[in-house]
Structure formats: C-alpha cells, structure tokens
C-alpha cells in the first residue's frame, strides 16, 4: 500500500484529532469543535513547516 504523503497526513490528523477530541471534551458539540480545531491545526502546521523547509538544502 502506497499512500501519498498528503493522504497519509490527512488520515493521521483525522485519527489523532478524533481520539484527542473524545478524550479531552465531554459534550458532543465541544468534541466536534475541538476535533475540527486539532485537525485543521495539524494541516496548518504541516503546511507551514513544509514551506519553511522548502528552501533548505536537504
């Protein structure tokens, strides 16, 4: 199985944010909002770090 980096990132963020939201919040509405926040944060940080590393000679 070969997933693209972005797909793997999306799935990773989805699973982790779901578990985090269910563990840290008690009300369904809070869980949904926090889950979406964590999911989007994963994506935003990944994009930001990706662009920061882009000019580096790695």
């Amino acid at each position, binding site marked *: *199985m*070969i*997933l693209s*980096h972005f797909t*793997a990132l999306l*799935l*990773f963020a989805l*699973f*982790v944010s*779901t*578990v985090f939201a*269910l*563990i840290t919040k*008690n009300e369904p509405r809070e869980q949904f909002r926090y889950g979406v926040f964590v999911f989007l944060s994963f994506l935003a940080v990944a994009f930001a770090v990706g662009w920061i590393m882009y000019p580096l000679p790695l």
Partner: protein
Amino acid sequence: MEEVNNAEQSAPQSAPVELKRMNMTATLAICSSGWLVPGLAHVLIGRWIRGAIFASCVLLMFVLGLGMRGKLYDLEFDEPLHVFAFIADIGTGLFYWIAERLNLGLGTMTWPSYDYGTTYLWVSGLLNYLIVLDAFDIAQGRKP
C-alpha cells in the same frame, strides 16, 4: 409568581452528572482489557459509541501502518532507543502479538511509505495508552 421566577433563574443550567466510582480491582481489570483490545475498556464501562470509535481509530491506524510496510519493534537491548519504540508498539496489546506471530511488521526500509507506516504503528499504540487512561478516569469517577 416571583418566587417561581427566582427559583427558575437560580436553577442550574443542566443537572449535575452523577459520577460513579468503581473499586480499584475492577478498574485495573477493565484497563487491562482495554490495553489488550483497544476500546474494550469503554465498552465494559458502558460507553459503547466511544469505545467503538476508539477501537476503529486505533485498529485502522495499526492496519494502515502494517500496510505501509512499517516496522514493529521487538525488545532489543542492543539498541537502547528501540526500547521506546517497543513500548509504543505494544500499546496496541493483542494486535501487536498477533502481527508478530504472523510475521507482519518486519518493515521495508526501501518502501516509500516506510517512515509513515512506522509512525502510524507507534502512534496507534500511544493513543491506546491515552484511551486506557481515559477509561481509568471514567471508572474512578473523575470524569463523566
């Protein structure tokens, strides 16, 4: 009439949730089962939906990790840092041992998604530790 209004205003917004506390032996037994089978602890406590979601998240991550040719680490003292990887991997409980017995999780370093797969395997185990701790808190009456 004013008294009724005052009573309504001073009433709490929602009824307080009654937190039940189990004895420590039952709690540890439930947590052990949750470690062996992800999500089972919450099912035993009566949180069916939460347990099913946890189980599917951990198992999907584990299966995807194996599918991406990730590596499951054994307990090797020659490489001390691998002990941490081993601790993360055994978080999935029985599924780690089943995968080991089936010779899965050998890891193909040349495979494009090897690193992602290995990370998926680590994180699925680590998430299950968090899930077990959540079940512990619920069983001890610390959270609803």
